């Protein structure tokens, strides 16, 4: 509700009339979402519960998904990549956000820009850039061997190292921003009060700041994890044979095999997992904070 009121354009008569009837605006938005989002989603359900010949309702696709361990492996790999990415993002993102929230305005601006500018660049462009940087004859290896730190170029590409570097780079802003949003609104008097009562800086952080910022961390972790399990481009470009994700397999099933019912079932399974992750995150952080409509 507050969202609608805040985004309405003020000072125009028509806008005032709209504001009087927010229901109409919401109905329009809902109709739009229903057409472009809900209807295709329903047809996804339709396909997923089709028989192999396309005749009648059936659980054939589901039992195929359950019975074929190829897809279990792929789901496992996808989860593993997503979990590691989330962990690394949290380890880098939390101190970064803390610095952003507590430093002077000039450095804070610089840190914000460093997070936001890559954020506005296409994922494809950034993944390709990493291919150039991390390659056997890429910039990073040239430096490392040139400085004598390595004898032979390190394998940084086409393995999980490459995937993690690329994915952390792409997803880090989703971790930093929710944590920063909470830390920046935290009353600086609280840790100060703890210190005045004799707590060491570390103790003040562990017992006051950290617990208060946990919802931001949970929101960031949920966002990063949700995006990471649906990721396609970065693992496909930077990964090796052991980094085949479920998104790549869905593409194969839909494009090469034209097996849309099974593709739909795989997509639904992925969607269900994303929903599950969202629900877990929401339990810790609140759904609104993850969706970004609260806590700014």
């Amino acid at each position, binding site marked *: 509700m507050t969202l609608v009121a805040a985004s309405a354009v003020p000072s125009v008569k028509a806008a005032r009339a709209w504001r009087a009837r927010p229901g109409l605006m919401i109905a329009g938005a809902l109709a739009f979402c229903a057409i472009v989002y809900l209807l295709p989603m329903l047809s996804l359900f339709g396909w997923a519960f089709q028989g192999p010949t396309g005749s009648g309702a059936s659980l054939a696709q589901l039992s195929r998904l359950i019975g074929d361990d*190829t897809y279990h492996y792929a789901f496992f790999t996808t989860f593993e990549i997503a979990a590691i990415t989330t962990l690394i993002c949290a380890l880098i993102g939390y101190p970064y956000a803390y610095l952003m929230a507590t430093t002077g305005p000039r450095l804070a601006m610089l840190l914000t820009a460093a997070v936001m500018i890559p954020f506005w660049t296409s994922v494809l462009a950034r993944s390709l850039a990493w291919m150039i940087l991390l390659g*056997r004859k890429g910039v990073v290896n040239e430096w490392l061997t040139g400085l004598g730190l390595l004898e032979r170029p390190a394998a940084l590409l086409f393995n999980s190292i490459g995937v993690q570097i690329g994915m952390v780079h792409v997803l880090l802003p989703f971790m930093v921003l929710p944590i920063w949003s909470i830390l920046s609104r935290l009353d600086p008097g609280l840790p100060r009060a703890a210190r005045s009562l004799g707590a060491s800086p570390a103790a003040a952080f562990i017992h006051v700041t950290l617990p208060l910022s946990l919802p931001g961390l949970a929101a960031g972790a949920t966002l990063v994890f949700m995006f990471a399990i649906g990721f396609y481009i970065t693992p496909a470009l930077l990964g090796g*044979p052991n980094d*085949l994700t479920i998104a790549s397999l869905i*593409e*194969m099933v839909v*494009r*090469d095999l034209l097996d*849309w019912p099974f593709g739909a079932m795989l997509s639904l399974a992925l969607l269900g997992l994303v929903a599950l992750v969202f629900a877990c995150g929401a339990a810790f952080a609140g759904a609104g904070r993850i969706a970004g409509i609260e806590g700014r």
Partner: protein
Amino acid sequence: MTDRSGLSRRSILLGGAGASLTIASPFVHVTPARADKGEIVVAGWGGSRTTAMREVMFTPFEKATGIRVRDDGPPEAAKVKAMVDSGNITWDILDTDIPAILAMVNAKLLEPIDYSKLDKARLGKIPPVLHHPYGLGHLIYSFNIVYNTKAFPNGTQPKTWADVWDGVKFKGARSFPFRGGLSPQLEFAAIADGVPADKVYPLDIERAWASHDKLRPLVTKWYANHAEAIQLLSSGEIDICCTIGPRGLVAKKDGAPIDVEFAGGKLAPDNWAIVKGARNADAVYQFLNFVIDGKVQAELAKRIPYGPSSQDAFAHLSEAEAKQLNTSPDNLAKQFWTDIDWWGKTAENGKTNNENQIERYARWMVKRG
């Protein structure tokens, strides 16, 4: 939306109120309005390939017949399925490969080609192996050993598939395709294991996979599309690659340190295929008869180095031009044809060999070790 449904600016003006009504209602199904002489839409791969086709095929055909040719693409099978399923068919002819055709035949998305409507003399110059019931081979690509010339200077390169499988004698990073329909290296795996190229079909699947297992540790990158493969080779990230030879030749022409070994290559056609429900069958066959002419194909081959399917084309090409093409008589003799029938054959489980091997490939890839 308007462009896809075939509305030209003129027909919008002529249509007046009616046309503006169709534009105003984007959710109403629009039947394409075609010009009098007819119009066909060819879905192809775009880029320099489509530019060359427009120069030597589309524009001359328009001049000769008055039938307008529009191009669109890429000819994704999934998109054809969406068109046929929804009844909103905006493409007539596809320029696409065999894996896509097999998938589309299975999903009943194509019209069979009526060979009686094609010019006998011109058709006779195209090898019978390319007369598929649903696709007429016109532009030949081939999977070849493509290598970086800095890693393998002066004839030290791997010349056979057994060499490619030999990681001791031929050091260097390999890249092989993953996805993109057929599993093209299965034949090569069999050949590397000692099966003669002319006896490779029917493929001994288990023997091929056993040989394929030996390749795994040598492969640095399983690439997803051929442009990526050429990029990896040019940058020196990869030393040996199994990819489309003609693409390697394009990169070589542009100055990349790349060369192609035609020996042992697997030839495969890109085909003309007709979308189910294509509106103007007469125009479609006029177009096909025009573009299977050897002279037209020769002109195309001068612009893009893919092999012409018509052997008549070589009468219109110089020796130097012919040498670069994978279907020149010399190069043809060193290579073998993909057996489309074998890949399209239905196996015991009701799926085609193609589908089964794609799935097995995915399984092989995700299971570690």
